[in-house]
């Protein structure tokens, strides 16, 4: 009888802890919806398509923030994704076996650095370089493109995108590496035996096999880029604009929240910020949920 009791209590505790995780995510969703009701009532769908952010007149809309979030994430993926795949291939296929652990630890450390440090580095080291070197260079040679017109201020979409690109490298490369390692050795040997060069073997057999997993890794990296706050807040320039030029300052969803949340005086202002958080929650939740589901299915199938 007594033994039974201990078992019941312990099992109950583990069960409650599990349920607590489920409940807390549901509760986050619930609280965000409740908190954003005033703003939803006041602005409706116009919140998503207008581009006014005026705390004095109490008129808010999300488009500048959503635009900034998407643009910076796209830049991050364009720069970060190929580099991450290259790193994953290098560690799993090219470097000698005994270097695998130490070299992947170097990339892991890149992921361990707090985002505030990336922010400081971006603001004090990278931004001046963009302003004085890279910006004028792009403007001179690619200035005919609308993306590179205007005067580089140092802070802006491009700087934020580059910082994000570095930050998502560890996420994408570690997942791609894991998936690449799952490709059976026999397939590689078979490909080499057929007379393929090493790169043909990697691109046709390894990457072909790991395609789904690598895309999943990219999606998780995208999830991180969409929600990253501090680093972006420090280098995006914080202006509620929509601008096609990558040199101009902007806003992202997370940086708007970080900047204005403690200073929001009006109820509508606070509620609009919570609605922004709700939008971000939606975007990241479904990006990650979809990807994780895919990864779980794929790994369990094997």
């Amino acid at each position, binding site marked *: 009888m007594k033994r039974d009791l201990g078992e019941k209590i312990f099992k109950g505790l583990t*069960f409650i802890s599990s349920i607590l995780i489920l409940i807390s995510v549901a509760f986050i969703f619930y609280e965000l919806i409740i908190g954003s009701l005033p703003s939803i009532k006041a602005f409706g769908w116009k919140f998503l398509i207008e581009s006014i952010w005026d705390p004095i007149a109490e008129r808010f809309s999300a488009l500048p923030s959503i635009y900034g979030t998407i643009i910076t994430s796209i830049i991050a993926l364009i720069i970060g994704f190929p580099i991450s795949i290259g790193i994953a291939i290098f560690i799993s296929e090219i470097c000698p076996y005994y270097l695998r652990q130490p070299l992947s630890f170097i990339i892991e450390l890149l992921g361990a650095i707090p985002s*505030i440090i990336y922010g400081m580095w971006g603001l004090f080291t990278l931004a001046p370089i963009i302003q004085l070197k890279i910006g004028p260079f792009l403007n001179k040679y690619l200035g005919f493109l609308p993306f590179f017109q205007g005067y580089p201020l140092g802070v802006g979409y491009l700087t934020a995108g580059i910082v994000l690109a570095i930050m998502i490298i560890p996420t994408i490369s570690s997942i791609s590496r894991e998936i690449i390692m799952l490709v059976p050795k026999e397939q590689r040997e078979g490909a080499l035996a057929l007379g393929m060069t090493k790169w043909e073997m990697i691109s046709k057999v390894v990457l072909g096999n790991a395609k789904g997993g690598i895309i999943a890794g990219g999606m998780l990296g995208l999830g991180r880029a969409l929600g990253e706050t501090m680093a972006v807040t420090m280098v995006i320039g914080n202006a509620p604009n929509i601008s096609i030029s990558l040199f101009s300052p902007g806003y992202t969803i997370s940086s708007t929240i970080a900047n204005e*949340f403690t200073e929001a005086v009006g109820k509508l202002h606070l509620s609009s910020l919570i609605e922004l958080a709700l939008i*971000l929650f939606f975007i990241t939740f479904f990006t990650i949920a979809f990807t994780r589901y895919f990864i779980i299915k794929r790994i369990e199938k094997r």
Partner: protein
Amino acid sequence: MNYRVRKIISNIMLFLCTLSFIIGSFFLFWILGDLLRKGISSINLNLFIELPKPPGVPGGGIANAIVGTFVLAIIASSIGIPIGILSGIYIVEYGNNKISFWTRFISEVLSGIPTIIIGVFVYILVVIPMKRFSALAGGIALSIIMIPTITKVTEESLKMIPNSVREASYALGVPKWRTIIKIVLPSASSGLVTGIMTALARIMGETAPLLFTSLNNSFWNIRLDQPIASLTVQIFNYAMSPYKEWKSIAWAGAFILVLIILILNVLAKYYARKRGYYE
């Protein structure tokens, strides 16, 4: 295409892969080198023993922020570690059902939710009812960030324990819960310690969820219902300020923060390798 062309293409592509690794590690060393250069020159003893001072006044430190970061980490650990480990145990030992699948799935999703959203959530949940920013709110926010990581490592390290170990214990008449506490958890301890250190390193570097939960404080505080300073928020405020002295303190603070986090990470790695996972 003849063989030579294919071979050249192959070598070029392999070189590009190597290059991308070099680029990745180059950024790591650039950032760390920057920190070292700007951080070391501004480090002095005052940082560790003095409170923040207004701009213009010489000296001033971030002693309260360093202590605050550890206080927040302790609050977060005392909530996050038990819940994380218990739910990990449920997934591996008891759960062969829908709930265990969903816990695993949702906790992985939770680990990817932007931390600023956790901050907004805790603001609504704790700060508004308490009517003030508090260390407790900051700790709760960090614990929510910590739980998925701990659940994941518990799950992974418990799965590595072979079933024969459990069965041997059952055969001696030990009930399941005592088997888990006395046999399974100790065998998995090296994995757990590694995971806990990694999780600690992660939450100590978090800024976004603290911005509007624990806020900041220029004075000593050990009361949990009052705002508390943390290294990260202090670094953020100082770095964004227009004052030169504050900026140099921010660099020094950043150096200290990264040092703590790197030490935790290297220790975690060392511990994992020294003990080795149960094989």
